[in-house]
Structure formats: C-alpha cells, structure tokens
C-alpha cells in the first residue's frame, strides 16, 4: 500500500517537471519574436520600406549588346587574377567596349576554380584556376535593375587576359511617374505567389531579408522599351548573392 503511494507521487512529480519544461520556455518567448508570415510561406525578416505613391518609369533609348569569347574560358590556366587585380583589369578593358556606364555598380568579383572532388572523403582534392569573373549591374538613381539585360560580365585569365566579355545594357531616360502599390500590398501579392517569375524551388519558409523598389531588364535579345517599377523581395542564398522575388508594382 505504501509502495503504491510512493509510485503515484513519483508519477505526479515527473508530470509537473515535464509540463514546466515545456511551458516555461513558451511563456518566456517575447511576443515580437514571432516571425511575420507563415512558416509555410514567406517570412518577413526585415521591416517594409516607406512606399511612395508613385515611382518613375524609364524609357529605353539605346541598347548595347556585346559578346566576345571562346571555349578557352573553361580551360585550366596556370594562374588567374586576384579579385582586386581583376577589377583594375576589367575597368581598363571596358574602355575599348564603350566604357563603364555611369549607372553601373560592381556587384560581384569571383575566382572560378575547377575542383577535383572526392565523393567518398567529401573533400576537394585539387583546385585548378579557370577564370576570374567581374560583374557589374545597373542601378538607376539608387534603384536596382535585376535580370540578365542589365549586366556586364568580364572573365579574365592569366595576366588579366580577356577571355570573355558580355555586355547587355539599356540606356534609359526618365519617362514620368506612375502610381504604384505599397510594399505591404506587394508583400500580400508575394504571399499569394503573384510573382513576375515563379522560381523553380520551394516557396515555403523563405525569409525576406531586404525589400527594394527596382526594375527588371529582359535579356539583351528581347525588345524591351520601358523599365516599369517592381517590388523586389530579397532572400539570402547559401551560395552567391541574395535571390530576388519580383512583384509588379504598377497599380
């Protein structure tokens, strides 16, 4: 009879300790730490920017589309420029290709190596230099232009040898103001997956780290006449630059 009471007591104590272990952390969670948005959708990890009632559109007045390059870019080189050297080489090279546009910003410098990878040991056994990439993108009055039609990509080999250059650039002029939706309205559209382009990846649990008003440039082969405003929701990627989820900003 005494043993029965002792056992009942132990069970009760264990139950109280377990309940406390679960409840205390929950009760201490600050209310504002709950992420905005659903864990199954987008999560707003930043504050939305102020939303102007209107935004500029830009008319395309001239398009530059240049490509020079060869398969040599994939070959293994004895050396490639450092990231610092590559930018200096790129700026010099660009003089012969119409110069660096005033609305260009340096967006990426990257040394590319061919890696011999061992699947069993999960290690890179050897690295062979291939080329150094210098990439410029377009920014109009501080607004980013995303897409393949606003890019200068230069690939350099030994001693800064130009292996490949691709310049897709649209020169624009102010074309007036258009009414736009707010950033919060755009975020609602994002949650409903009303995107300019649907990515080929999961749309669950994506944290938005930055939001900007910007523009989209189709690739150089398309006859795009106008840059219209878009809301860009950036999400960090494990590899490379943040990925832009684009929502049409036009009302």
């Amino acid at each position, binding site marked *: 009879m005494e043993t029965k009471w002792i056992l009942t007591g132990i069970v009760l104590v264990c139950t109280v300790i377990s309940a406390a272990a679960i409840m205390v952390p929950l009760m201490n969670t600050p209310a504002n730490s709950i992420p905005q948005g659903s864990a199954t959708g987008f999560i707003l990890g930043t504050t939305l920017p102020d939303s102007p009632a209107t935004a500029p559109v830009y008319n395309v007045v001239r398009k530059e589309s240049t490509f020079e390059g060869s398969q040599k870019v994939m070959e293994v080189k004895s050396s490639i420029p450092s990231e610092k050297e590559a930018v200096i080489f790129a700026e010099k090279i660009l003089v012969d290709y119409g110069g660096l546009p005033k609305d260009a910003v340096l967006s990426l410098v990257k040394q590319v190596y061919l890696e*011999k990878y061992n699947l069993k040991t999960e290690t890179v056994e050897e690295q062979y230099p291939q080329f150094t990439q210098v990439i410029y993108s377009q920014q109009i009055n501080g607004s980013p232009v995303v897409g393949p039609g606003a890019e200068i990509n230069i690939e350099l080999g030994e001693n800064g040898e130009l292996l490949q250059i691709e310049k897709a650039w649209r020169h624009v002029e102010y074309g007036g103001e258009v009414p736009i939706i707010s950033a919060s309205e755009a975020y609602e559209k994002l949650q409903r997956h009303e995107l300019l382009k649907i*990515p*080929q*990846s999961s749309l669950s649990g994506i944290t938005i780290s930055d939001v900007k008003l910007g523009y989209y440039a189709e690739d150089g082969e398309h006859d795009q006449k106008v840059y219209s405003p878009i809301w860009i929701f950036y999400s960090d990627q494990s*590899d490379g630059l943040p990925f832009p989820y684009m929502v049409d900003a036009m009302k």
Partner: protein
Amino acid sequence: MQLRRIKIPLLVLVILCAVITSPVAAYQFSMTSSTVYYQASTYPSLPYATEMHNTVSNWLTGTPGWTQTFYHTSGYVDDTDFGTTGMGLNQAELHYHYGHGGNDGTHTYLPFLNWPTTSLYHSEVLKKWDATNKWVILDACGVLTDTDWGGALKYSHGLLGFTSNKTPSTDLPDRFLRNTIDNDYTISYSWQRATQATYDPPVTARVIFDTNDQLQNDHLSGQGSVAANEAVDDNTIYVSTWAC
C-alpha cells in the same frame, strides 16, 4: 545467265549504299517535365512544360540521327525515369529534366507530383548512370548544390544544372542546344554560355563531370569528339561553378 551474274552483285551494292547513306537513329534523348504538384503552396505549378519540350525536341529531332526515347510529364514522372531500375535515362545519350528542385537541409532532391511521397534523391541513383547515357541536365533550382549527385556518374559523363534559385526560361535549352549543334561548342562551354546569357548573377550554374577530359572535350554526339568513358569507376568528380 551472265546478265544475272552482274545483276545480283549490283543489287547488293545498291542495298548497301542505301543502308549506309540513309539517316540512322544513332542517338537518343529523353525528357521529363515535372510542373504540377499536389502541394502547390510549397511547389506552385510551373509554366512552359510544352514549350520546353518543343524546344528540346525541335532542336534534336531536327538534327540528323537523333530520336526521342521517352517524354514523361508530371504524374507520369517517377524514379524509374532516372534509371533507378537500370532503364529510363540510361537508354538515352542526353536527358533533360525540367521542374522544381528541393533541399531538405542535408541533401537536395527532385520533387514529383505527389511530393513528399514521390521525389528523387542522389542516393537512389548512386552509380546508376552508365551504358548509353552521357549527359543529364537538371533544369531545376539548386539541385547541384549537393555534389553527391556526381556519384550517379558511373560511366556516364556529365551533369549540368544550378546551385542557386532560378526561374523557368525556354531560352535556356534553346541557347544550350544552339551552342552544341550550330556552334559545335563543347557541352560544358555550351552550358556556361547558355546560363550566362539567360540569367544574371544571383543565379549560379554548375557542371559536374566524371573526368576533366570529358569536361573539356565532350561535344554533343554527332557534333564533334566525345571523350572516353572513365577507365575505372572511381570516387572523384570534376566540378566547375560560375555566376550567371
């Protein structure tokens, strides 16, 4: 009698000539498009399934010697298309897959219609790609972030894909195949050119080849030299990754 003696060898010669000069279905390609998903809140439907197939098919069937072994869409796409049981893409030199890519935090995968019940992980195709297959294109987000996919290359040569997010574009297969067929570029360079012309820097593309010789020298079958298969299947692969 003498006329008959001449006629028979002549007939044999004519038949031989006809056989030799007629286009032979020497190369095969296959394609899978997984663009519709039951869990649409996670994997929304993708556009251009038909257009993607038309682009790939028009380029290849318009090139002498190429025929299609199979084209499966959404509900008909499953693991066996990827050679898990030995057939599937192993019957074709080139396989093109278009769809979503997934990442569970440890490994990447290809989700299919009934995801998460149906999907393909690298472990299911480990050392399964050989025989006829030479190249597999995974036109999906981030799948090649996971280099373990390279383990599928037993005697197959290369994997082409992405290590970042990306969006659908029919320009991608169009440019890739134009580079391989019209320009006779190597497979790896054709992919580099096509990905860079179609996307911008947040997108990163990757090739994984079984040997460096294949990465540097493989051309699409019928368009130039194709490097030898790996002599002995080992555990090393060659990886190159660039910003688009």
